[in-house]
C-alpha cells in the first residue's frame, strides 16, 4: 500500500461562530481521481483551502506528503479556486509567464497548445475575455502543471454542458497520472464517469469514503443515485397562505 498523499486528523475550522469542519479525518492516496462530494455548506471549499494553505486549521493536523501546507507543499499542489483570481489587466501570456516563473513543474508549451486548440489569443487581456473563457484559461494553467495534487473546486459549476465536457476531458487528459486529483462538486452525474474514489462530506465530517467500483457493487446504484439517497432533504409540502 502506498503512503497517503493527504492526511487530515481531527481537523476543526470555523468562521466566527459557525463551525465548518468538525473533527474531520481523511486519508487520500496518490494516483487517483477523487470526488469530494457533499451538499452546499458541507465544508468542501474550506477543506480544499486548508490543503492549499490558504487557511489554517484551528485544531488538528493537515499533511500533504507528510508536510504541513506551506511553501514546500504549494510547489506540488495545483489549486483551482471556485472563482476567477487573476488581475484583469494581465494578458493570458502574462499569466503563462507568471506560472512558468513560479512553478518548476509548469509546462508552457502544453498551456500554449491548449490555448491554441481553444482559439484563445494569448495576447488578449483577461478583462476582454468572457466568463467562460476566463475559467478555461484558469483550468488550462492549473492542468498544465505536473503537480502531485490537483485541488479543483467546483470546476464545472456554472458552465454549459459542452464546456463541462471540455473541462472533464482536459482534466482526464492532462493530469499527472502519478498524482491525485481532488474534485469538489455537487454535480455528480457529470463527474461520476471519471472518478476512482468518492468522499462524502456532511456537516464538516467525512461520512463515507470508498472506491467507486466497490461502492457501485455494494449499493447496486450509481454514485449520483447514492448521493441523492444520502443527502435527500424532505421537501416542503406546501400549505395555505395565512391571511
Amino acid at each position, binding site marked *: 500500500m502506498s503512503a497517503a498523499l493527504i492526511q487530515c486528523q481531527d481537523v476543526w475550522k470555523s468562521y*466566527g461562530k459557525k463551525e465548518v469542519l468538525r473533527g474531520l479525518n481523511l486519508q487520500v492516496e496518490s494516483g487517483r481521481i477523487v470526488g469530494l462530494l457533499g451538499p452546499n455548506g458541507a465544508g468542501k471549499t474550506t477543506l480544499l483551502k486548508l490543503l492549499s494553505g*490558504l487557511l489554517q486549521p484551528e485544531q488538528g493536523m493537515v499533511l500533504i506528503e507528510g508536510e504541513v501546507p506551506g511553501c514546500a507543499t504549494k510547489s506540488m499542489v495545483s489549486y483551482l479556486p471556485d472563482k476567477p483570481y487573476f488581475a484583469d489587466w494581465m494578458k493570458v501570456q502574462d499569466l503563462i509567464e507568471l506560472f512558468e516563473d513560479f512553478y518548476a513543474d509548469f509546462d508552457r508549451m502544453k498551456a500554449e497548445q491548449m490555448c491554441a486548440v481553444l482559439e484563445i489569443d494569448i495576447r488578449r487581456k483577461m478583462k476582454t475575455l468572457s466568463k467562460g473563457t476566463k475559467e478555461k484559461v484558469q483550468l488550462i494553467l492549473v492542468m498544465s502543471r505536473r503537480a502531485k495534487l490537483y485541488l479543483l473546486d467546483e470546476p464545472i459549476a456554472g458552465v454549459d454542458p459542452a464546456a463541462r465536457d471540455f473541462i472533464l476531458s482536459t482534466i482526464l487528459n492532462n493530469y499527472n497520472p502519478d498524482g491525485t486529483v481532488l474534485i469538489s462538486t455537487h454535480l455528480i452525474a457529470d463527474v461520476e464517469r471519471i472518478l476512482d474514489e468518492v468522499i462524502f462530506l456532511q456537516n464538516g465530517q467525512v461520512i463515507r469514503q470508498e472506491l467507486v467500483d466497490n461502492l457501485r457493487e455494494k449499493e447496486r446504484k450509481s454514485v449520483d443515485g447514492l448521493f441523492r439517497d444520502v443527502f435527500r432533504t424532505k421537501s416542503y409540502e406546501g400549505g395555505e397562505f395565512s391571511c
Partner: protein
Amino acid sequence: MLKKLIKYDLKSMLRQFVPMWILMLVVAMMLGISSKDIDTSFMAFSLSRTRDHAIMGTMMLVFAAVMVALIVMTILFCIQRFWDGLLKEEGYLMFTLPVEAWELVTAKGIVATLVTCASIFVGILSIVVIILFSSDEVLEVLSSSGTFFYRTLFQNSESPYYWISILLWLLIGIFSVAKSIYQIYAAMALGHLFEKHRVAGACISYVGISAILSFVGNIAMNMIDSRLGREMIHSSMELMESVYPLVYYLSVLLLTVIQLIIFHVIIERVLSTRLNLE
C-alpha cells in the same frame, strides 16, 4: 522568488504610473513655456498679453490638477495593490504561489515605496522643469538665489560629518515613506481579521495604530531630544561639525526602522496564520 514577486508588482504599478509621470513632466514643460517672456509690466496691456496670461493660467490649473491626481493616485494605488492583490480574489493566486508570506509583504512594501519615492521625485523634477522652461529673468533670479542656497547648503561640505548627514536625511526620508506605507498595510491586515466591515476595521486599526505611535513616538523623541537637544544647542556654532546631529539623525532613523519592522511582523503574522479570503 522575492525578485520575481517584485518584478510582477512593479510591472503592475508602472503600467499605471509611467503615463502619469510623463504627463506630469509634459504639463510642467508646457506651463514653463507658456509663462516664458510674458510681459508682466502694468502698461503692457494688450490682447496678446491677455491671451498669454489666460494660457498660462489654464496651464497652472492643469498642472495643479495633475499634481493632485498624482498624489491621490499614489496613495490609492499603493493601498489597492495590497488590498486587492493579497486580501481579495487575487490573493488566491498569490497565496498559492510557492513563496513565504514575508516575501509577499516585502515585495508589496518595496514596490510601493519605490513608486512613492519616484512620484515625489517626479513632483520635484516637474517644478525644476517649469523653472528651466520659464523666462530667463526668473531663471536669473532663481540662479542667484540658487547660488545663495547652494552656498548655504554646501558651506559645511568639507566637514567629515556633512555627507553622512545628507545620507542619513535621505535614508530617513525613504524609510519614513516605507514606514507610512507599512502602517497602512498593517491597518489593512488587522482590518482583515474582522468578520464583517473589514474596510471600517482597517480604518479603525489605522487610527488606533496612529494614536499608539504618536504616544510612544513622543516619549521616544522627547528622550532623544532631552539627551541630545541641549547638547546640540550648546554646540550650535559648530553645529555641522558636531557629532551630535549625527547621533540624533541615527536615533530617528533607528526609531523609523523599528516601527517598520514591527509593522512587517504584524502583517506577516496575520497573513501567515489568520488569512481568510472569504
